[in-house]
């Protein structure tokens, strides 16, 4: 076309005008730390595995979990999921049921027989892990992934530690636990059962191992002094749970008192109900709101008919009658005796007052430091003795299975660094994607998927798993409730809302090469910040231009 001068122009020619020069601030894509990830004691990249689960790629999701946690099916059941307490979605409606998805993925992996292959190249280093509980298993698994040879010495007849002895079947079916332990074994981890390490110093002297990870847990029940007419009526919780796990039927009687307010107290009270106790009464010296047991455990126990006596201490027993004293809370929340007494009838009393660590096997180890009944470790999980690392319940930390799993992972990485003479340096933590960073308008309303509950009547009489898993549809739904805090989930908002088309959408190889799905074209970006404002998950940050 013969075009008139100036009046008529070729289309799209404004590309010659680089409006990027107007900019005083530039948008930058960032990965912020999702609060769930931050809260996870096992250091799982929850947002990341949910991302895979959202698209139905369960295997990738599971493999993402497996980078940090070798036992998703177990953890999906027993973890107290601090991630969900931190979940930003909780501020919107209800937190994402992360544990339910994790459990689904773990179960799916067992069902599908997914495996993790250790690297073909071996490091030539050998590590001894003492104790086949969660942190020991976790450490062994991660060490195998890092190419080391691992042997676990377990004192007991079966692997699992507190996962087996401390958690009833109705919360963690044994076949699930065994499947996940078995998977670790199949990676080449040698588990030597019934092999108690009596003296670690001696084992070390043999020089078969280049490093040791101690993970013996805390299995010595704490006692309370209760003058009793019949000491046989007083049992400890772990003992009871262990017997039940082994298929025995401890004689508890019709009316069982449980002394303590932790999760173990709940477990044992609920177990007592299942063992035939008509009444199970939890006696706790403080009030419900300061009780250490998780809310959901208390709630489930109540549903199963477990009764509670708050602000009560047990002073003595005589012929099935327990003398109790009423307590009051002072201004610090501490229980104080009142001098008022009462009695409760009970056929047995189960003490659930916590556990101590059996540290006898460490007596001859040089340099170890023990404080408050636990072994002190540095930030690299190493004890005062070079090459000896420790984790789980035996080191100062919260005593949960998830913390133990996390310890195992961290220790493995530090041991790896130690063995390679390089030390381990964790990457710098990203800024947390707090709720204020999000633009929650974009998220669809979605109430959480409810896990099916075993009806109460059945619960009090059987050890069937109380909480069922999600079916695939529900798991997918639940995964998709994730807000993907601080991490791009390819919603195209930045690409769409830029008035200057200055966001380039990358697909296929371009996206792979870039490691992102979008790129800012700074030739045209005027720095209006619309992309940052409208990013639902807070994955774009405006940074001042340097002039």
């Amino acid at each position, binding site marked *: 076309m013969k075009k008139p001068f100036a*009046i008529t122009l070729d289309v799209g020619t404004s590309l010659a005008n680089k409006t990027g020069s107007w900019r005083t601030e530039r948008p930058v894509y960032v990965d912020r730390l999702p609060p769930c990830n931050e809260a996870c004691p096992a250091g799982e990249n929850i947002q990341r595995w949910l991302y895979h689960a959202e698209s139905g790629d369960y295997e990738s999701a599971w493999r993402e979990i497996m980078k940090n946690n070798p036992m998703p099916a177990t953890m999906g059941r027993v973890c107290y999921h601090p991630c969900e307490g931190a979940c930003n979605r909780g501020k919107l409606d209800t937190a994402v049921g992360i544990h339910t998805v994790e459990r689904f993925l773990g179960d799916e992996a067992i069902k599908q027989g997914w495996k993790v292959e250790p690297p073909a190249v071996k490091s030539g280093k050998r590590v001894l892990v003492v104790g086949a509980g969660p942190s020991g298993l976790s450490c062994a698994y991660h060490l195998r992934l890092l190419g080391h040879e691992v042997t676990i010495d377990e004192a007991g007849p079966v692997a699992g530690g507190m996962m087996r002895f401390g958690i009833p079947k109705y919360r963690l079916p044994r076949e699930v636990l065994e499947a996940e332990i078995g998977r670790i074994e199949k990676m080449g981890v040698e588990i030597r059962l019934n092999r108690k390490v009596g003296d670690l110093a001696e084992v070390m002297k043999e020089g078969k191992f280049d490093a040791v990870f101690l993970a013996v847990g805390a299995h010595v029940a704490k006692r309370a002094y209760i003058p009793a007419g019949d000491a046989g009526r007083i049992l400890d919780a772990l003992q009871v749970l262990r017997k039940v796990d082994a298929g025995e039927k401890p004689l508890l009687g019709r009316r069982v008192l449980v002394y303590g307010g932790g999760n173990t107290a709940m477990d044992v009270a609920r177990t007592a109900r299942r063992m035939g106790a008509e009444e199970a009464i939890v006696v706790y010296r403080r009030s419900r709101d300061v009780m250490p047991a998780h809310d959901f455990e208390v709630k489930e126990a109540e549903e199963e008919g477990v009764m509670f006596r708050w602000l009560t201490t047990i002073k003595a027993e005589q012929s099935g009658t327990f003398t109790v004293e009423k307590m009051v809370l002072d201004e610090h929340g501490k229980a104080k005796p009142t001098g008022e007494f009462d009695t409760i009838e009970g056929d047995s009393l189960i003490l659930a007052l916590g556990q101590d660590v059996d540290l006898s096997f460490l007596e001859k180890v040089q340099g170890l430091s023990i404080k408050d009944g636990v072994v002190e470790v540095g930030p690299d999980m190493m004890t005062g003795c070079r090459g000896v690392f420790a984790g789980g319940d035996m080191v100062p930390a919260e005593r949960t299975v998830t913390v133990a799993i996390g310890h195992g992972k961290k220790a493995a990485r530090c041991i790896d660094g130690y063995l390679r003479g390089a030390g381990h340096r964790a990457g710098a933590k990203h800024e947390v994607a707090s709720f204020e960073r999000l633009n929650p308008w974009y998220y669809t309303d979605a109430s959480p998927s409810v896990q099916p509950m075993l009806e109460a009547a059945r619960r009090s009489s059987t050890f069937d798993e109380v909480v069922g898993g999600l079916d695939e549809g529900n798991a997918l739904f639940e995964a998709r409730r994730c807000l993907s805090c601080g991490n791009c989930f390819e919603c195209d908002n930045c690409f769409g809302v830029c008035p200057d088309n200055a966001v380039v959408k990358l697909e296929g190889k371009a996206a792979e090469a870039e490691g992102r799905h979008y790129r800012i074209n700074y030739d045209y970006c005027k720095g209006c910040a619309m992309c940052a404002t409208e990013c639902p998950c807070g994955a774009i940050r405006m940074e001042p231009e340097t002039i």
Partner: protein
Amino acid sequence: MLKQCEGSVAIAESVALCRPEVICAYPITPQTHIVEGLGLLVKSGKLKSCEYINVESEFAAMSVAIGASACGARAYTATASQGILYMAEAIYNASGLGLPIVMTVGNRSIGAPINIWNDHTDSMALRDAGWIQLYAESNQEAVDLHIQAFRLGEALSLPVMVCVDGFILTHAYERVDVPSQEQVDAYLPRFEPRQVVDPDEPVTIGAMVGPEAFMEVRYLAHARQMQALELIPELAAEFRGAFGRDSGGLLHTYRSEDAETIVVALGSVNGTIKDVVDEMRAEGVKIGSVAICSFRPFPSAALAGALGHAARVVVVEKSLSVGIGGNVSHNLKMALAGRATRVHAVIAGLGGRAITMASLKKVFRRAIEDRLEAVSFLDLNMEVVNRQLERERLERRPGPAAEAILRDLAGAGVGVGAGANGKGGAR
């Protein structure tokens, strides 16, 4: 075909022969019969492949024509008077975009006071809008000019106004030879637009042009009008060959070769002037006339050639450039710069005031006697004017002038100008 019909009907038929594809119709006296005629031709199926659009204003009429022309359709509209002012912005735009729209102007005055009768104030107001302006002397020429206008405009990518005196031509029944479709088709090729809005070859038309290029754009518009000065006579010559008639061209001369006094005018008044010239020639006066057909572009060189030998030129102008005098005479003075020829402007026929042979003869005599002022007003009732001026001297607020003058005229029993149209008709 030779026929006796109203000018507007003949123009409508002529436009239809040009196969317009989009016609925008909006009524305004005295142009209305043209678009009515076209409406009938479209509605009755005689003019096919044509969108006839009843728009809501003249501004819309021109705007619709702009859109249509920019999409490569041959577009036509007609207007007059207030209508041309109402579309003024779009008129400039059409030429600025180089869209060869053809528009008939049924020339009429502009208010206030509102007046529906003929003069050239309307088209003169838009003389600098970048359009080619052709003025028809008769309905035959009006018919012919429309055919040439489409050809001319499309050749140069410029819009063309064909100016036809309102009522005097538009409403006059007279003998007209309306050509055949075959003749017109042979003369007027298909519209091949210079540029077009088309999804197949998208462009941006109507960009904002800043100081760095605006002068050049404007100059190019001027250059194209200068090209028109060459093309207009060529097209008229070709027209003569094809249709056997002299129509169009830059100007028409009449007994002017040896004339000492030459009368210059636009449009239909040239017929009356020719009759006066004949009468005065019969009396031995060396007088002739020149009708300017193309006022834009202004044929300066041709006029200098046609008028340069005369002692004086009397320009009979149907518009008043208030505050200075005549528009045509001013342009003409530029064309005759450096020559001894005197130029007189005679403002005549404003608002439909009849231009009579008697009055013209009188004024030409005065010119020949060298008693004619540089600017004069034909048949102006000075008595009325002076009375109002006197009133205004005496009172600060003498009331509306037009009404006072009408009162004066009624009181004095004075007819509306000597030989005013049909006496009571104009009152």
